[in-house]
């Protein structure tokens, strides 16, 4: 996994609550057996006027200019600013794969769906929870200011606005460590293989039917 330390980047505001994983990456793209290449299909049904299919070349597809991700001012955005319950719905990890592959490194929202939140950390994508009034203020500032950027520093756990205001955020220490070092969870867990085996032996003698 690639490491995440700090991003200073253009902000794309997605002003709707309950953005679900079907909206982030529609089901037809789940047929891929790869982890990469989902970026061009991020928000496919909102972003394009035609129907997208896996493997389609997106360079000449008709864009839906009502969807702000297509606006010139948001091209090259690296910070996705969202509303409540972002990433709700299915467990598809294709959702963070698509967001990361598009070029985002951070998603900021007042709340995230649990599975999506966990999936982000497995893919070098940092989900940042900020209080709803703060997110609301960032939305207003972003919409009012072309070229609005935010700096997200994982080590310091701050989101810094263009005016220099540093907003603190919480992150699980284990997740932070793994993300900053780009560590693979499996290798870390296998360091405890003896403990897993010991647990398994005890568990099997108590409930042998679980191992039948």
């Amino acid at each position, binding site marked *: 996994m690639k490491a995440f330390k700090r991003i200073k980047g253009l902000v794309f505001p997605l002003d*709707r609550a309950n953005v679900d994983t079907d909206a982030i990456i529609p089901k037809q793209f789940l047929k891929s057996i790869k982890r990469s290449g989902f970026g061009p299909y991020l928000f496919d049904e909102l972003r394009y006027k035609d129907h997208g299919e896996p493997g389609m070349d997106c360079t000449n597809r008709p864009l839906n200019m009502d969807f702000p991700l297509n606006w010139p001012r948001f091209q090259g955005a690296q910070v996705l600013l969202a509303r409540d319950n972002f990433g709700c719905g299915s467990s598809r990890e294709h959702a963070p794969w698509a967001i990361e592959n598009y070029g985002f490194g951070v998603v900021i929202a007042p709340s995230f769906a649990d599975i999506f939140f966990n999936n982000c950390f497995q893919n070098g994508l940092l989900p940042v929870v900020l209080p709803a009034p703060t997110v609301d203020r960032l939305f207003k500032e972003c919409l009012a200011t072309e070229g609005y950027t935010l700096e997200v520093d994982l080590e310091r756990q701050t989101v810094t606005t263009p005016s220099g205001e540093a907003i603190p955020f919480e992150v699980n220490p284990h997740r932070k460590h793994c993300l900053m070092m780009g560590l693979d969870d499996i290798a870390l867990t296998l360091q405890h293989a003896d403990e897993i085996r010991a*647990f398994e032996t005890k568990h099997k003698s108590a409930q042998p039917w679980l191992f039948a």
Partner: protein
Amino acid sequence: MAGQTLYDKLWRSHVVREDADGTTLLYIDRHLIHEVTTPQAFEGLRLSGRRAWRANSVVATADHNTPTSDWDQGIKEEVARLQVEQLDANIKEFGALVYFPFRHANQGIIHVIGPENGTTLPGMTVVCGDSHTSTHGAFGALAHGIGTSEVEHVLATQTLVAKKSKAMLIKVDGPLGKGVTAKDVALAIIGKIGTAGGTGCAVEFAGSAIESLSMEGRMTLCNMAIEAGARAGIVAPDDKTAAYLKGLTHAPKGADWDKAVAYWKTLKSDADARFDSVVEIKAAEIEPQVTWGTSPEQVLAVGGRVPDPSQEADPQKRASITRSLAYMGLTAGTPLVDIKLDKVFIGSCTNSRIEDLRAAAVVARGQKKASSIKRVLVVPGSGQVKRQAEAEGLDKVFLDAGFEWREPGCSMCLAMNADRLEPGERCASTSNRNFEGRQGPGGRTHLVSPAMAAAAAIAGHFVDIRSFGERS
């Protein structure tokens, strides 16, 4: 010290190790696998030279991409066929306790075949790269969806890196009214607490109304826990749970059975257990439900009217209602029973079990689908469910009513196969999500119970199932 919740007991009995910050290595008993969310996980194992830690924890099937008709012709779409064939190859290489590939007699939706084969048991931890894994909580198991990286982690280590959720109790007391099913209870709960109401929580469903539900009803309820944002939904096991499991292929046998049942009796929240939050609902207030919007929380009793965004004070919610109505092609103030439908879907991991099909058949018996309804799909949840339904003659009831009787699979719940809505088509569906495009791009989904879906198919529009017999 306060007593333990059922969630506490399930969690603590699976902790391999816990760090000072609460990060826990949780042992996983059952790993459910389907073709869509696992190819990258197996590829990861292959690339790192790892094996499956305990292959006999794996129960696998192909369900999302599989067609529900013309099985003899295989899977026509190439990428879908490749994904299903990749699952065959992955299971062959890495192993499984149970594998029902495409066209196997017992193939079906992973959340239907797990329980019916006794591979989901009380006290287990159950994971799957699928959000509706919460279904298995109906057995008093701790069950939830995971991402593909976590699928690889569980395959390689038999554990999950996790942090304990908060414990929420949703108590539904009193007798359920006529025509009110587990699906209506689930939708009413989501309508009350919202699609993020359970975020960060493991929800225990309790109360006399929950106890009165059959195991299949409990599965429907726990299945929808994820639509309230909950990490897991759990119902304490009881005599019904044991009766359901006894004799199933992978359920414990002989002395193990007695020992298991004795252990399962301890799996309930202590009387003095403390929950982080409690929601109480009177069963008598729950009516048959219909969703009108593009989120499961946008739901009302069938007697209601499409809401008016101008009546909503919160600007975020107002915008959301306005957007939903535009997508759904609905006008504020329209009675829900006046909404006309194009298609009906009876199936999915929420409502495709034998009791669901019986409930739909009771309504459809001797009736015909409305001429305005283009298609009614009835998709059983598994090969076993299909055979049982056919033994009871339910297939004939559906076919006589002009419904289509299909092969098992996920089908039009998420439209990864050929079963889908065309843009603008409106569907009464027994599935779990009414998101934009869920049943096909531009498709409009209304979530209902199986009986309500069947009644809508006959009438051509929604009807209150409580008075359906009187009208026809």
